[in-house]
C-alpha cells in the first residue's frame, strides 16, 4: 500500500443548512490506530458517514484505499454507535456476526458457506465471545454487546476498521481490554475511531485529531492544549480534568 488508507482533502459537509464539517483534511496511514476526539455535535459521526460513503461531501475529495468510498466498502469493517443499535432484535450472536459476511457473497441467494461459518468462529474467538455464540444479543452485557458488534465488523476480514464511540457504555476494565484487543489487531489493519471522551484515549493510539467542525491535529499521538482549546472552546483544565499527564506536553515541545 503506497498512499494513505483514508485521505480527505478540504472536505466540507452541510446538513440541512448547517455546516457540520468545514474544510477537513485527514490522512490515515496503514497501521495507524487513529483517534478523532471532539465534543458532541462536532461532526464525528458525519465524518465517518462521509468516509463510508453513506453521506456525500458537499465539497472536497474523499478517497479510501485510493478510490471512491463506495467501492472501498468491501475492505472496511464498521462498528456503528452502540446507542443507535437495535439490541431487541431476535438474533443470536453467531447469526449476527455471520450477517457481516453477506457483502462478500456473490450469489443472488447469499447462502452462508462453510468458509463464512469458520470466519464467524474466528471473529468470535478474536473478540473473546465464542462461548456466547448461541445466546440472543438481547441477553448480553454492555461489553459483550460491543464485542459482538466488533466481531461482525471483523468477520469480513477488513483492512480498515472504523469505530463510532466504541468505549461508550462500557466500564473502564472493559475499555482497557477493548483497546488491547484493537492493538492486537493492528498488524495488517488500520483503525480509525471517534470518541467524545478524551479520557478514552489509550496509550495504544498512534495519532490523534480534534474535531469540532474544523479539524486540528499535529499528526502525532499528542493532544496539545491548543488543539483542545480550538476544538472545545472552553478552558482546557475543565475538560482535561483527570487525564493522564502524558497527553499534555509543554507548548514549546509541540511546536
Amino acid at each position, binding site marked *: 500500500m503506497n498512499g494513505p488508507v483514508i485521505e480527505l482533502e478540504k472536505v466540507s459537509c452541510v446538513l440541512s443548512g448547517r455546516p457540520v464539517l468545514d474544510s477537513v483534511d485527514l490522512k490515515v496511514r496503514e497501521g495507524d490506530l487513529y483517534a478523532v476526539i471532539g465534543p458532541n455535535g462536532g461532526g464525528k459521526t458525519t465524518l465517518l458517514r462521509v468516509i463510508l460513503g453513506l453521506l456525500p461531501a458537499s465539497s472536497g475529495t474523499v478517497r479510501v484505499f485510493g478510490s471512491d468510498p463506495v467501492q472501498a466498502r468491501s475492505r472496511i469493517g464498521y462498528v456503528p454507535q452502540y446507542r443507535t443499535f437495535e439490541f431487541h432484535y431476535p438474533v443470536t450472536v453467531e447469526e449476527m456476526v455471520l450477517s457481516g459476511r*453477506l457483502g462478500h457473497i456473490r450469489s443472488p441467494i447469499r447462502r452462508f458457506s462453510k468458509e463464512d461459518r469458520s470466519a464467524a468462529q474466528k471473529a468470535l474467538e478474536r473478540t473473546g465471545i465464542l462461548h456466547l455464540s448461541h445466546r440472543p444479543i438481547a441477553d448480553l452485557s454492555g461489553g459483550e454487546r460491543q464485542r459482538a458488534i466488533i466481531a461482525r465488523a471483523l468477520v469480513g476480514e477488513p483492512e480498515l476498521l472504523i469505530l463510532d464511540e466504541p468505549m461508550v457504555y462500557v466500564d473502564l476494565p472493559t475499555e482497557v481490554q477493548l483497546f488491547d484487543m484493537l492493538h492486537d489487531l493492528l498488524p495488517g489493519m488500520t483503525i480509525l475511531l471517534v470518541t467524545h471522551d478524551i479520557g478514552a484515549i489509550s496509550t495504544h493510539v498512534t495519532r490523534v485529531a480534534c474535531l469540532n467542525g474544523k479539524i486540528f491535529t499535529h499528526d502525532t499521538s499528542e493532544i496539545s492544549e491548543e488543539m483542545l482549546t480550538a476544538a472545545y472552546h472552553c478552558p482546557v483544565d475543565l475538560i482535561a480534568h483527570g487525564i493522564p499527564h502524558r497527553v499534555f506536553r509543554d507548548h514549546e515541545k509541540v511546536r
Partner: protein
Amino acid sequence: MMLGILGFEFFRNALIAGLIASITCGIIGSYVVVKRLVSMSGGLAHAAFGGVGIGYFLGIDPFLGAAGFTLGIALFIGTIREKFGQYMETLVGVVWAAGMAVGILFIALTPGYAPELFGFLFGNILLIPTKDLFLMGLLAVVILAIVIAGFNQLMAVTFDEEYSRVMNLPVTALLLLLILLIALTVVVLLRVVGVILVIALLTIPPAIAREYAKDLKTMMALSVIAASLFTLGGLFLSYALDVPSGATIILLATGGFGLMLLERRITRAGKLSVG
C-alpha cells in the same frame, strides 16, 4: 359431533384458509414487528378497501381489485419511502384514510347492492369461495418462496439497515420487496379477518412469539403456531356460537396477548424474588 362439519366444503375451505393465513401472517408479521412497520402495514390494509370499492364499481371481482390496488399502493409507498423519511408516518395516515374513502365513494357510486361488503371489512372465514382460496394459496407460495430465497438478506436489512448499506447489499430494493410482501400478506388475510382487523393478525402472534424466541426463525415458527391457534380456534368458536369469525379470531388473539403479558410479569417477578 363437531367433527361432522368437516364434511362440508365451506368448512374445509375455512380450515385451509385459516392455515394459509396463519403461515403468511406468522412469517411476514415477524418482519413487521421487528422492523417496526406496524403503522405502514395498517395503512396498507385499510387502503386495500379502496381496491374493493373500485372492484365493485368496475364490475370486476372486488378481491382481485383489492389485490391489485394494495400492490400498487405498496409500490408507491416503497418507492418514495427514502425521500420522505420523517414524513412517512404522516403519509401512511393519509394513505390509510384516503384508501378507505376511495372504497366508500366507489361503493356509493356503484348502482345496486354491494354483496359481501361486511365480509371485506371484518372478514368471514366461513364464506370463502374456492376460487379465492386458490388465489390465497398462490400468493402464500410466492411469499414463502421469496422469504426462503431472501432470508439472510431480509434479516440483515431489517436488523441493521445502515450496516447492510455498508456491505453494499441492495437495501432499497430489499425494503421495497418487504413492503410488497406485506401487501401480498394483507391480501391473503383480507378474506379471513377483513381490512380493519388485518393489522391485529399481522402483529399480535409475532409480538407474542418474540418474547419466547431467541432468533428470527424461531420467532416465525412460534408466531405461525400462535396464529393457527387463534384462527382455527376462532373458526370453531364462531361456528359453534354463531358469532362473526373475524372478531372472534382477533379477540382470541388479544386474549393470548394478555396471557403472554401476565406470564411475563409472573416469570419476571419470580426471577426477581429468587435473584
